[in-house]
């Protein structure tokens, strides 16, 4: 079940949430905050979400991914909100499947769709200022 949370994300918890004895593969994507961007030294990121809509979109993305990729048993998406420090996970996608190919494809699909459609924004706080980071314009 999708989560938006202000508390730190646990990679082990996310993996454990999807895995079962019927699965031969757990694919994980972990997005982490890096210390540089566009030539700037980043201090931390601050995430804002349209909570109610983002939760609805994340839950739908989980459901649709299970339905779309054969052999996928479970998908779990967890995303941070608020301040996330350098090196910390900002998002985790965990996918459990019988076999690795479907798990890897589904994991890639989920993070691509999340970045394209889910109403979450990051504000970069760097040395000397802060600015909103925005994706390419255009309605999803």
């Amino acid at each position, binding site marked *: 079940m999708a989560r938006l949370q202000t508390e730190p994300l646990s990679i082990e918890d996310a993996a454990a949430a999807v895995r079962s004895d019927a699965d031969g593969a757990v694919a994980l994507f972990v997005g982490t905050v890096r210390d540089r961007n566009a030539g700037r030294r980043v201090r931390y990121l601050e995430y804002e979400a*349209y909570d109610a809509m983002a939760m609805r979109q994340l839950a739908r993305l989980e459901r649709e991914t299970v339905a779309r990729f054969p052999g996928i048993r479970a998908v779990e998406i967890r995303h941070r909100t608020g301040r996330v420090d350098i090196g910390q996970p900002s998002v985790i996608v965990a996918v459990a499947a019988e076999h690795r190919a479907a798990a890897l494809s589904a994991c890639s699909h989920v993070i691509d769709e999340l*970045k394209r459609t889910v109403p*979450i924004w990051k504000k970069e706080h760097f040395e000397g200022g802060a600015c*909103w980071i925005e994706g390419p*314009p255009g309605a999803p």
Partner: protein
Amino acid sequence: MSVEVRYFASLADLAGTSREVVDTEPGDDVGRLWVRLTRCHPELAALSYRPAAACDLEYASWDRVLDGVREVAFLPPVSGG
């Protein structure tokens, strides 16, 4: 009639608020609402792109009629992940 308008991220900065209640006329659509909002918040009129809109938590086109809609959100290009 009225709708609750939500602004996020850079749009909230430009509007100077993250939510407000705005009166609407029967038959108003998202585009007409936006034009009205840019009169109250001239900074929004200077945007170089047309933001995505959502009605009651689902993406909506700009010709979506607001009759029966409770909440309209304007969303800058998303950047989660």
